[in-house]
């Protein structure tokens, strides 16, 4: 199995502070893996995803995605990755279809392929009836589903998802996870940050718990769950690795 994402000696310090958001972080994600990036608030998850998606420049280290280094070929990398931000990254005054047609075209997907993918995606998300409704009339769960679709219309090799199921109903959560499983089934690498440990435990093939910008524990999910000779829940593992410090971030 080849590597999809390689993070080497990565460090990030925001200007004006001595605090290191990312501290000499090393991580390798193989092709087709679903990595759950877990950690308390302020642990460095969003900073790490921002670096990986080209939004922030690190102070040290390098990131290689699908063989391309972010500092040298970010334009090439942008064609290979899909980004699903935590915020609803959609135009409220446009319809679901118009939003998807716009973002798909910005990834260079042309008609009739784009139109077909938009219609199929909307159908898979169970929103066919609402495809011509404006986004500002959608519920939170419906917006989350369209938010996900907007980042994957170009069939990226790597998808970065920042809390993709936060604040949504069970139905929407299930539709989103099923859709992501389907994408992963065709070999798409998924890097997913979340607070929902139960969801991460069942969805991710690999987990990395991050705190203070440092990976505390990382490995295949099933291996990480085995500790001190017994199978623990991801929540227990999470608290063991971040618990004492978690209160600091509340």
């Amino acid at each position, binding site marked *: 199995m080849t590597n999809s994402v390689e993070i080497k000696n990565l460090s990030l310090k925001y200007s004006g502070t001595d605090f290191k958001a990312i501290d000499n972080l090393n991580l390798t994600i193989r092709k087709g893996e679903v990595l759950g990036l877990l950690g308390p608030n302020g642990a460095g998850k969003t900073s790490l995803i921002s670096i990986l998606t080209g939004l922030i420049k690190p102070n040290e280290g390098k990131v290689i995605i699908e063989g391309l280094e972010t500092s040298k070929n970010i334009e090439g990398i942008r064609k290979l990755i899909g980004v699903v*931000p935590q915020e609803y990254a959609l135009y409220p005054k446009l319809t679901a279809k118009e939003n998807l047609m716009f973002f798909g075209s*910005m990834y260079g997907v042309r008609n009739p392929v784009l139109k077909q993918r938009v219609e199929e995606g909307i159908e898979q998300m169970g929103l066919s009836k609402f495809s011509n409704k404006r986004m500002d009339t959608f519920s939170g769960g419906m917006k989350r589903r369209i938010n996900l679709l907007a980042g994957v219309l170009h069939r990226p090799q790597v998808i970065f998802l920042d809390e993709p199921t936060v604040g949504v109903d069970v139905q929407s959560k299930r539709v989103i996870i099923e859709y992501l499983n389907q994408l992963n089934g065709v070999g798409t690498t998924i890097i997913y940050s979340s607070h929902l440990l139960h969801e991460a435990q069942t969805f991710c093939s690999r987990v990395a718990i991050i705190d203070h910008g440092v990976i505390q524990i990382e490995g295949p999910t099933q291996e990480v769950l085995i500790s001190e000779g017994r199978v623990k829940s991801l929540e227990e593992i999470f608290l063991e690795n971040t618990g004492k410090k978690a209160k600091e971030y509340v």
Partner: protein
Amino acid sequence: MYKIFHAVLKELRLLRRDLLGFAIIFLMPVVLIITITFIQNSVENNSARIQLPVLLVNLDEGDLSKKVIENLETNNNIKIISEIDGEAITENSGRGLIAKGTQKVLIIIPPEFSDFIQNQTDIHVNRLMSTVVPDMEVEGDTESNTLTKEVQIHFDPAISSSIKSNIKGAIESMISELESKAIYETFERELDADLSFLTEQKLVVFKEYSVSVNEIDIAPTAVQHNLPAWTLFAIFFIVIPLSINIVKEKNQGTYVRLKTLPVSSFHLMLSKIIVYLLVCMIQFYLMLMVSVFLFPIIGLPALDVEGKLIGLTVVALFSGLAAIGFGVLIGTFAKTHEQAAPFGATSVVILAAIGGLWFPVFAMPETMQMIAKVSPMNWALEGFYDVLLRSAGLISLAPNLLLLLTFFIINITIAVAYEKKINQL
């Protein structure tokens, strides 16, 4: 091109969905130009009919002051008032009325004004005669003195300086004419000759011509002066919705996604430039149509655009580019709607003021005239005047168009460079 097409489509849809904003963008400039032209045209038309009441206190009993009053009464813009409610106006009552602001102008002709003028004239003529004809026996005093008589003009402080100048100028010219007449009459008397031909025949006459590049004589109308100024004002106000659009997008989640797309900031910016330039041109044509077709219907002079449409379109296009460049720059640097909107509005008003949209540049202080020369609104205004009033061709327009284009390029370059810097990986 494919990406730009879809980005343009997105911008158009966003604009269309905001119906109120859409209506404001197109209707307000039209309302603006109709209102301003209507007011200005009314003021210009009425200024010929309006009579300024002028209080007059004549303390002289001679003929010359009567002639002054007769002449003032023939002036269509002045209405001489010597008494109010059957009571003659005195120096004190007149001053009181001016001080209260009830009346605007008071003229006081001093006692013995006519005798004074006649005596002074006699002195000057006698002195001259004794110099030219030494053997001639001259009657009367030949010693000149430097005495002057004061005609007082009191103004209400609220009256405009231009009206003050007009009144003072009219009285000075009238008295000067009477002095000349008195001199000629004294000469006639002394020489016992008829010199009336000297006063009856005017040696110099004035006729107004409008000079244009193509030597076509054009009589400028209020609309020709108004349309460029207010059209430009409306075009430059695109700075506000455009900068707000950029700031709003930056503060939405979409900005994060846009920054991760395989599309450059310039391409995204270009889509906004295209759409907002289209808006500017629609605004311009709407105002043009109003000036050509609606104005004659509502009793205003119509704008004559025959043979000028291409020139006007080109100037509007380059003015739109300059305005959009400025709007993009403000939107790029501003972080909040509260920063973009007031700064955009205020800077457009300042640019309009220094660009000569409200006051002619030649009437400004020297420093402001220098500043006006680097104002994009001034380049655009001159471009419009070149086409409308001087019938200039595209080659004559080139310098101003080039300046507007350079302004646009500089703004966009700075905005793109700044965007690149903050997005740099």
